[in-house]
């Protein structure tokens, strides 16, 4: 390969390849996150979820995509056609652009910018235009109101989430996504354990930023129909949807990188080797997980009611076996391949765990009212995030000057102070919500 491609282009080959892979796989991934969401929802609500298209509804996302593709493309009579076309594309593009700086592993990253995190934040803050312009271009009151609500919500919670990220950033001392993960490796602890309050603020902020329940007011179907998406249908609507789910993965990836140790496996610095070989003991974890999944599938297979389901279960079990073999095989491969595959595994596992938390919260909580949402953002999360920045910064300085060598000590002190502040703010914020003093319209 080295002598075929001229060296000036060589540097671009791998990133472009990664980019193509991400752009090609993301719609599929989003589709399957939707399926996952519906299955998780069904499981929590004591029902089965999609079962018809393909075994256990496994082909449902493809059917949905096809349906959306062939639907009639409706543009409202008085809509601003150009912006109406632009907005969903913008929404998806911005979500996809953010993937450029996300490290899916030590190897699999399109570009390691030295302002990586800020870049992702900047790009995702542009996503707001997709919403606002779409709502405006539809020329409908529901859309415009939904869009303005969305925009207000996004701006408010972006602030809190951004400030929460600062606490992690100070610990890492870098904006490059790669260096942030490396810092967690060097310090031997995921930042979620050092600044749990910051992680919590980011969790809440990111749910609100992606317009998920309980902050899904812009699309509160019982009040505003579908918010800024009201007038959209068919594939444009699908683009919005894709953008939303892509954004979910982005915020999950940010949280994973900054707080959950990125591609590091649990206990990354524990390096016992297996019987004198070069294989690290804990690198066997993915293999064991997949083997367990395979065993569960095989146990389940004969218990399925229908023949086809038995076969599918067995096939899924077989797939798990193949994956387990792959994860094991990677251990014997050269370092780059091994790190790449295992890093990607852990990164995706954490991303999905984070998304699972999103879903869990969505199916558990009722929806906030708009004024309550704003009060939570401005009177609770933002002050808390500000104090968090100050406290964590102070602790870091103290740690450097007073030689508190053990990071957990400062972590405990920080967290204790922050919990106190949170309790104080929560007490302030939970004063009975008197509707007489609130309202966004005023």
């Amino acid at each position, binding site marked *: 390969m080295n002598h075929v491609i001229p060296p000036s282009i060589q540097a671009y080959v791998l990133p472009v390849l990664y980019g193509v892979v991400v752009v090609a796989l993301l719609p599929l991934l989003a589709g399957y996150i939707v399926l996952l969401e519906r299955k998780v929802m069904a499981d929590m609500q004591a029902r089965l979820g999609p079962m018809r298209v393909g075994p256990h509804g496994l082909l449902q996302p493809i059917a949905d995509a096809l349906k959306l593709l062939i639907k009639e493309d409706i543009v409202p009579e008085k809509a*601003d056609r*150009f*912006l109406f076309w*632009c907005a969903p594309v913008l929404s998806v593009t911005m979500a996809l652009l953010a993937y450029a700086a996300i490290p899916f592993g030590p190897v699999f990253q399109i570009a390691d*910018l*030295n*302002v990586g995190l*800020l*870049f992702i*934040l*900047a*790009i995702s*803050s*542009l996503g*707001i*235009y997709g919403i*606002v*312009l779409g709502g*405006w271009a539809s020329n409908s009151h529901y859309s*415009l109101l939904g*869009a*303005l609500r969305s*925009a207000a919500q996004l*701006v408010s919670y972006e602030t809190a989430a951004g400030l929460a990220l600062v606490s992690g950033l100070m610990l890492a001392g870098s*904006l490059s996504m790669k260096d942030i993960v490396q810092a967690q490796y060097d310090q031997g602890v995921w930042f979620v354990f050092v600044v749990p309050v910051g992680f919590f603020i980011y969790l809440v902020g990111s749910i609100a930023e992606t317009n998920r329940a309980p902050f899904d007011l812009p699309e509160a179907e019982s009040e505003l129909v579908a918010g800024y998406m009201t007038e959209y249908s068919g594939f444009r609507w699908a683009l919005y949807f894709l953008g939303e789910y892509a954004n979910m993965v982005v915020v999950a990836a940010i949280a994973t990188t900054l707080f959950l140790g990125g591609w590091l496996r649990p206990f990354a610095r524990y390096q016992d080797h297996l019987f004198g070989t070069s294989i690290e003991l804990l690198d066997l974890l993915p293999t064991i997980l997949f083997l367990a999944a395979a065993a569960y599938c095989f146990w389940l297979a004969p218990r399925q009611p229908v023949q086809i389901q038995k076969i599918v279960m067995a096939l899924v079990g077989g797939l798990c076996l193949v994956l387990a073999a792959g994860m094991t095989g990677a251990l014997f491969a050269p370092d780059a391949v091994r790190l790449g595959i295992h890093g990607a595994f852990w990164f995706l596992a954490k991303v999905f765990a984070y998304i699972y938390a999103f879903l869990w919260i969505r199916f558990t909580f009722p929806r906030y009212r708009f004024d309550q949402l704003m009060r939570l953002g401005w009177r609770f999360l933002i002050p808390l995030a500000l104090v968090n920045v100050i406290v964590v910064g102070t602790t870091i300085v103290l740690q450097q000057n007073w030689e508190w060598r053990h990071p957990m000590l400062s972590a405990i002190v920080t967290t204790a102070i922050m919990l106190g502040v949170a309790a104080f703010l929560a007490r302030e914020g939970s004063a009975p919500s008197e509707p007489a003093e609130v309202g966004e319209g*005023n």
Partner: protein
Amino acid sequence: MNSLLFYFFSILAIASAILMVTRRNIVHGAVFLITTLLATAGIFLQLQAEFLFVVQIILYVGGIMVLFVFVIMLVNLDVSLHLVQFNRMKFVSTILAVVLAGHLFAAFWITRNSLNLGPRGEAMMQPRNTESVGQALFQNYMLPFEIASILLLVAMIGAVVMAKRKV
């Protein structure tokens, strides 16, 4: 590659700036201004000012322009689309602006050779732009920084007072 990027962003910036000034629909104008600002951000990146590139996007495009779009949507009157868009002194103003531009252009043109400092600056750029900006901001420019923060505070209070509905 570098100059290609520069010309691409420059043409994009100028074209959308012209469109911004001439569009009848304010929302379209705002969209074109956003394009200009993004193109400028691209030029910052091409100048290896990564931090400013990000600041431009987050603050200008993601913050200030959102505010503009918000206000435009709040005050958007359909009637304003059909009104005369330019004021009565438009010809005089344009001529004045062109004269000013020509003046400046001439000045730049005459002095362009003495300005060319390229190679010297090239060598002095630090690789870690964000850190050097941070260092400079919090060491050499501490006082202006604080003043800027007070300015922002004043502006914030002013905006709140101004926009608050008098009940």
